[in-house]
């Protein structure tokens, strides 16, 4: 075949016979190629874990407002006595406003339970149906046990998404979402790579025991190392971190 007779495609003319099979093969190849990599990409996704919303739950307990609202369960058919729950509002909202003035009070809570292993959270219903102070005098909050200063590696997550409100609810792809949750008042947790005193989840607090959100936003979703004082508040491990020691592990 001379060069003049070699097939030459012109868009507005009919496809040259010599190119039809080639182009047909390209079209079929493109469809199979995209379908194939779609299957591989989807089938090899990482496991987001077992966290999930697991139905309605109710509890009575002692509310602790700082560093972030949690409940120490004293009575419940849904949670173990002595366990501690992270309390959240709907969506990316905390319940600091609702918990204000109730620190140390006996309260009844109701809402959607979120659970992942040892970490449990409760997304409160609106109004008094979700959080209501109970009249009872002489409530004794759980004792604080100091476990000393520790250097810990792990990932800072928002407690709600990590517990199962989103799957996956951790990692860099989720970082902006987690930041938004934390800015909205959701309690931050450190998911440690190694257990301390039998636990791998730590509610984060500042050195003074107050909120620490603003100091940790650049380090959310990353493998980091930090130092701080570990305390046990009843069923909740709290880490009073030293923000100066926060560093990303390359």
């Amino acid at each position, binding site marked *: 075949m001379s060069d*003049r007779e070699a097939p030459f*495609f012109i868009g507005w*003319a009919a496809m040259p016979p010599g190119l039809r099979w080639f182009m047909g093969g*390209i079209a079929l190849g493109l469809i199979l190629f995209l379908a194939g990599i779609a*299957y591989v990409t989807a*089938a090899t996704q990482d496991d987001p874990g077992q966290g999930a919303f697991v139905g309605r739950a109710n509890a009575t307990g002692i509310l602790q407002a700082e560093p972030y609202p949690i409940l120490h369960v004293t009575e419940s058919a849904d949670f173990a006595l002595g366990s501690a729950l992270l309390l959240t509002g709907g969506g990316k909202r905390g319940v600091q406003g609702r918990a204000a003035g109730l620190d140390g009070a006996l309260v009844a809570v109701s809402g959607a339970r979120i659970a992942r292993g040892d970490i449990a959270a409760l997304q409160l219903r609106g109004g008094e149906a979700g959080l209501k102070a109970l009249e009872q005098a002489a409530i004794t909050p759980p004792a604080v046990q100091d476990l000393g200063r520790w250097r810990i590696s792990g990932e800072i997550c928002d407690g709600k998404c990590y517990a199962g409100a989103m799957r996956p609810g951790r990692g*860099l*792809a989720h970082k902006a979402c987690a930041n938004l949750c934390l800015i909205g008042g959701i309690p931050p947790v450190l998911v440690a790579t190694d257990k301390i005193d039998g636990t791998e989840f730590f509610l984060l607090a500042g050195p003074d025991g107050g909120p620490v959100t603003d100091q940790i936003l650049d380090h959310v979703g990353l493998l980091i190392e930090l130092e701080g004082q570990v305390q046990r508040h009843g069923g909740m491990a709290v880490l009073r971190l030293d923000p100066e020691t926060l560093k990303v592990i390359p």
Partner: protein
Amino acid sequence: MSDRYIPVQWNANKWLYDGVLLIACAAYILVFLRLGAPAADLTRPVDGAILRMRAFGSCAFFMLSVILCIGPLARLDRRFLPLLYNRRHFGVITALVALTHAVYVLNWYYAFSPTDPMVALLGANTSYGQILGFPFETLGIVALLILAVLAATSHDFWLSFLGPPLWKALHLLIYLAYGCVVAHVALGYLQDSKNPAFALLFGLSALAVAGLHLAAWAKAPRKSRGSGEWIAVAAPHEIADGRAKILPMPDGKRAAVFRDGDRIGALSNACAHQNGPLGEGRVIDGCVTCPWHGFQYRLEDGCSPPPFTEKVPTYNLRLRDGVIEIATKPNAPGTPATPLQIAEAAHV
């Protein structure tokens, strides 16, 4: 070619091209959601919205990779030239797939918050001073904006309005968009993914784009053979009938010297339409035909045949000692330049 603007000049090839694209795109999304995801070994399923944002996001990345491979593939093997013909529709569909990905992200990761989603998109993560944790979403936004602008200006109206050089310079932003997408994925999803399968596909795709461009670049002539008023081209028989020899000129542009039987003429290598490589085209019925979209120019004056009005610069030629020489200074677009007449029998 057209002497007026209509939304899309449909023809059988375009219907076929778009049909294959839509089937391929639908196959990707459906296989991802209906076959691939259920086959994953998961304790509990990934959230539906996250699954769909992954499906559309990865689809957009692979489609963009394919788009960027078409140009160099067509340079390396002319059989791939038909893929160039309707590439702009490929780009528009890819932009829509990328937009769908962005909508899922916005309505999931940035929803359910007291902060406005658009404010949250730019303000939730501001760690611009670090690599790990860098707000990779911003890179995705830049890429999406570029894709949107390129899709919106893909019509020939904008090509005519802006002029081919500016239009082409604008559309070269596709490489910036691809770079942003690569960084967007590398600093985002890839950091979380423990399974190497996607990382492998991602890396191979980016390498294919880079490798094919390097191969096409290595093949293209770049150095001019001289700087005087005339430079040597070749002996007439060294140019295949109906084809051209492309020459880099001293002014940095390229000329294409065509042989049409016993006539030899020279035009600018840049088509007036999208600056396509005329020299990689063919002389058909006496007209140089662009390999990209079939625009045609008469060999003797660089004008499109009536009723079309496109023009390209011509070059004067002469024959010295059996060698074609080309004038280094081009004539104005549409200027007649009498083709050399070569005795066919003496040179074929």
